[in-house]
């Protein structure tokens, strides 16, 4: 009892020590409160006792901001300005304590990221930009289909990325060429896979290439689902748009908008409302589609029973709630991270390790029998 009191008092007395500052910074960083973390850890770099550790942590935070955060939270983007800072901090950590193994490792990783950045810095070639514009012009029915096909073929030949397949499929949907759109989008998936495999080093981390592969598959599924919807094949559209939703992890404006339109056509107002709200709570999306989603929501709201608030206030509250929920879920999300070591026991009480399952695809289900 007495010991506990003494400890508490000691901690209170030394509240501003560099060690405490570092601990507070680390805690903030664990919660991904990067601004607070940076401020605290910067303070701790000034004290020689904590300098090496603080420079290292600062380097890791900057490396996260510079190269990794885009992958971690939807809507975040990497901040290249932090890349040089990350390397400088990690070098300072190694200088402060040359024996510090973790700092040297972190520096090697950051330098490898920086080396990968130097690949493929060329701006798109004028030819590609021009061909993309020609495909886009093909949206207008005034342009004969033959000309569009020619532009698509030229673009496919000029560069092996999947853009002409997916952008072309969208254009074909707008022209009412649903079956051709489906075929083109389907062909886009292996093209995307090949392009990513051939350029793997351009993706700085393994997670990035996997995310890019998933996005291509999601894009194809969404386009095909939308073409099926336009053909009034609702069950087919439901399956494909649902597949895209799982691949996008529910976080794509167009896909949520398409799901909403499908639900509306199927006379499922509750589902339509959910998807329209999910769509609008995501950033991006063409202004026309956002406008339409808002109009449809207003109609659904007017037809609903509860109308205590004016529509605008209700909508704002709904969107804010959804955005907050998503932020909270993202912070806790384990997606794209290594499965941690779990302390498990068999039912007769012996320790159980998941290491026996290494190298396998694992379905891990947590449940309770109540």
């Amino acid at each position, binding site marked *: 009892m007495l010991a506990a009191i003494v400890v508490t008092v000691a901690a209170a007395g030394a509240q501003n020590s560099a060690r405490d500052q570092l601990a507070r910074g680390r805690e903030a960083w664990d919660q991904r409160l990067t601004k607070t973390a940076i401020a605290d850890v910067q303070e701790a770099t000034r004290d020689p006792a904590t300098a090496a550790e603080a420079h290292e942590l600062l380097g890791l935070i900057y490396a996260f901001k510079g190269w990794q955060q885009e992958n971690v939270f939807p809507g975040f983007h990497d901040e290249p300005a932090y890349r040089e800072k990350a390397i400088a901090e990690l070098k300072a950590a190694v200088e402060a304590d040359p024996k510090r193994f973790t700092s040297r490792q972190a520096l090697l990783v950051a330098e490898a990221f920086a080396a990968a950045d130097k690949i493929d810095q060329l701006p798109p070639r004028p030819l590609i930009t021009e061909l993309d514009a020609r495909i886009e012009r093909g949206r207008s029915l005034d342009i004969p289909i033959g000309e569009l096909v020619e532009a698509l073929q030229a673009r496919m030949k000029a560069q092996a990325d999947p853009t002409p397949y997916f952008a072309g499929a969208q254009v074909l949907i707008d022209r009412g060429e649903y079956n051709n759109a489906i075929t083109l989008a389907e062909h886009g998936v292996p093209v995307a896979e090949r392009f990513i495999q051939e350029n793997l080093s351009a993706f700085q981390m393994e997670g990035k290439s996997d995310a890019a592969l998933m996005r291509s598959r999601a894009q194809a599924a969404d386009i095909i689902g939308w073409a099926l919807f336009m053909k009034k094949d609702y069950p087919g559209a439901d399956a494909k748009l649902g597949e895209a939703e799982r691949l996008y992890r529910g976080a794509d404006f167009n896909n949520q908008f398409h799901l909403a339109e499908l639900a509306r056509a199927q006379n499922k107002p509750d589902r339509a409302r959910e998807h329209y709200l999910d769509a609008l709570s995501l950033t991006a999306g063409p202004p026309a589609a956002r406008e339409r989603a808002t109009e449809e929501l207003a109609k659904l709201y007017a037809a609903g029973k509860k109308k205590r608030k004016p529509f605008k206030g209700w909508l704002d509250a709904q969107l804010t709630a959804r955005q907050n929920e998503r932020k909270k879920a993202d912070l806790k999300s384990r997606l794209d991270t290594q499965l941690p070591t779990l*302390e498990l026991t068999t039912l007769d009480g012996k320790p159980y390790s998941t290491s026996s399952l290494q190298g396998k695809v694992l*379905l*891990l289900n947590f449940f309770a029998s109540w």
Partner: protein
Amino acid sequence: MPHLKTVYAKFQNDPNVAFLLVSIDDDQKRLERYLDEMKFPFPVVHASSAEMQRAMGFNDLPSTFYVDRRGIVRYQILGFEPHGDSDARVAWYIDQLTHH
């Protein structure tokens, strides 16, 4: 969760796929009764609820994670699936990770 048994039947001969159920029951007797009834053909282990929630970041049960061959969590379903559990969907997630 009988649907997991149905899906497992599809993958039981695939050496690259594993199912693991983690019970976070406090009541051992009730769990035993449940397992007797379900007779799951794959391993079921036990863990502390608080520790698992901290490690895996879930609030709801059941929660399911699909982990790829390199040990990276690729899909997570926290709580029941919004449109209901289905054999097809569970198999879809596994197929994504085995084929790609």
